[in-house]
């Protein structure tokens, strides 16, 4: 009962957005009409407008490939760093881990002014590549932090045993630790991608041409012309983006949580 209630509270705005998507203008803009039902026949005009008449496809594509590249860069940087901090027993490892996590607390709002200068210096202004370069600043610190946690859940003995059996440290890392780390890795990938897709400030500050925009900035800027909001198309965009991401995340939720808890259970 409570479950249904909370599901409704969480998903309510999206359900309503889905209803709005197929409404005719004359149905939508009448104050006395029931906003939860159709008072006039439903229409898919606004959905078609979103898909063919706007840059929605381009935005989605940009978000996707930026996200994938950012995730790859993040893993390439964060995985070795996390391994180093979690496994190699340097005396400063704990403090360094916390220092890296604090980097995450430096808000984009503080950095975007100077970063936009940097982006110009790199010749990347108004290009989606600027986001590929800058987004890992958001994802790397959290990922390092999460990966340290996941790595600590893998007993050290397993690795030491592998090294005794003749693997080098790198060999043990790749053949023994990596497969065990996989669930945690997936969680980090999903988390990093979600962060990238939601980012707003950098995308807003760095990029102005429509063709280079990502979903989170493209939709609110291109579908609002002055005071005119294309409500049905905006709603459709929100639903179309929300559902697939939530589906993927839901698939990996158990792994995400399993990775989080393994440490505590095993002590």
């Amino acid at each position, binding site marked *: 009962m409570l479950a249904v209630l909370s599901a409704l509270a969480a998903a309510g705005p*999206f359900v309503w*957005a889905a209803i709005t998507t197929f409404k005719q203008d004359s149905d939508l803009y009448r104050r006395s009409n029931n906003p939860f039902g159709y008072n006039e026949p439903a229409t898919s005009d606004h959905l078609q407008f979103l898909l063919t008449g706007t840059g929605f496809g381009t935005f989605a594509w940009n978000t996707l490939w930026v996200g994938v590249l950012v995730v790859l860069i993040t893993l390439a940087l964060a995985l070795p760093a996390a391994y180093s901090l979690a496994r190699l027993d340097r005396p400063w490892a704990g403090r360094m881990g916390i220092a890296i996590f604090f980097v995450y607390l430096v808000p984009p709002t*503080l950095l975007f002014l100077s*970063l936009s200068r940097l982006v110009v210096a790199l010749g990347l202004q108004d290009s989606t590549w600027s986001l590929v370069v800058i987004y890992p600043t958001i994802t790397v*610190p959290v990922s390092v932090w999460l990966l340290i946690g996941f790595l600590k859940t893998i007993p050290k003995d397993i690795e030491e045993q592998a090294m005794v059996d003749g693997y080098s440290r790198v060999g043990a890392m790749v053949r023994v630790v990596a497969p065990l780390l996989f669930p945690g890795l997936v969680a980090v990938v999903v988390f990093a991608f979600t962060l990238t897709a939601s980012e707003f400030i950098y995308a807003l500050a760095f990029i102005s041409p429509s063709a280079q925009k990502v979903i989170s900035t493209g939709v609110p800027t291109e579908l609002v012309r002055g005071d005119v909001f294309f409500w049905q198309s*905006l709603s459709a965009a*929100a639903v179309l983006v*929300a559902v697939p991401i939530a589906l993927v995340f839901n698939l990996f939720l158990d792994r995400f949580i399993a990775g989080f808890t393994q440490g505590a259970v095993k002590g």
Partner: protein
Amino acid sequence: MGSSAPAAEATARTGEPRVADLRRRGIADRDGVLSWLLLAPAVVYILALVAVPFLLAVAFSFSDVTGGDPSFDWVGLLNFERIFADPVFWRSLRNTFVFTAVSMVFIVIFGKVLANILIADFRGRWIVRFCVLLPWTTPVALSTITWLWLLDSVFSPIDWVLRNLGIIQSNMFWLGQPTLAMISVIAVHVWRLVPLAAVIMMAGLLSIPKDVQEQAAVDGAGYWRRMFEITIPLTAPVIAISALFGAVFTFTDMTVVYVLTRGGPTNETQVLASWAFFRGIEGSDIAQGAAIALFLFPLLLAAAIAILRAVRGMEIS
């Protein structure tokens, strides 16, 4: 070297081929060097794209850099004097704290409740979890847009329901009145971050060994007693972490305010982050924007240290 070969053979026979191994291993096996090699890319990247811009932002706040005149001239504390003289700054500072504190309380409470719901086994659990995750996994700008429409001054369905129930006569103007606008902004923050808090807390709940709960139940502890004497103390560190995440996301976020109210009505819902953005980008006064944004950092740092300390203290006890 000559003498190590027989030694290696000897240890190999006892099952510990240490010496031979040590020779085969190169730089990659000296922990000190390796740890820096592995850490270096991430650290260099962070220094280049976070530390340098951060220092640059600090420098900007002592300068007169604007969008139109990007030359750097030192002006000392002038920007800060101007900020302190501006009532909007104090308003934003207060709002930032109010938003963060109020949202955090609700996020922790609802997150806890939601986590308890989500770990229970029931039919249709999958669909409930899917619905619950939606607010967090959707890009903030998009989910906030749907709220903008939900809170529309004329066509808000919330008002429609209230009107038809006879509770109100005319619309509420959710985003047009200071108090209601603040409530709206907080509500959207809470709605969006509760799922994240719930997921983190689920992890904590699942880590409590089942036998502890069962034993307590056998010993006659009721649901609420178990909740307050076992579940909450054992998951306190996780609750603190989810509170930290909630606080950081609320504290530094400007998207909800930017999309929902643009700081209005008349800066009543302005927060530091959005005020810095309006000043720095739309007002083109980069120096002042940087100075405003700078206030976020020490406060965040203090909050983070406090919470991390609390977590550590709990882990030791």
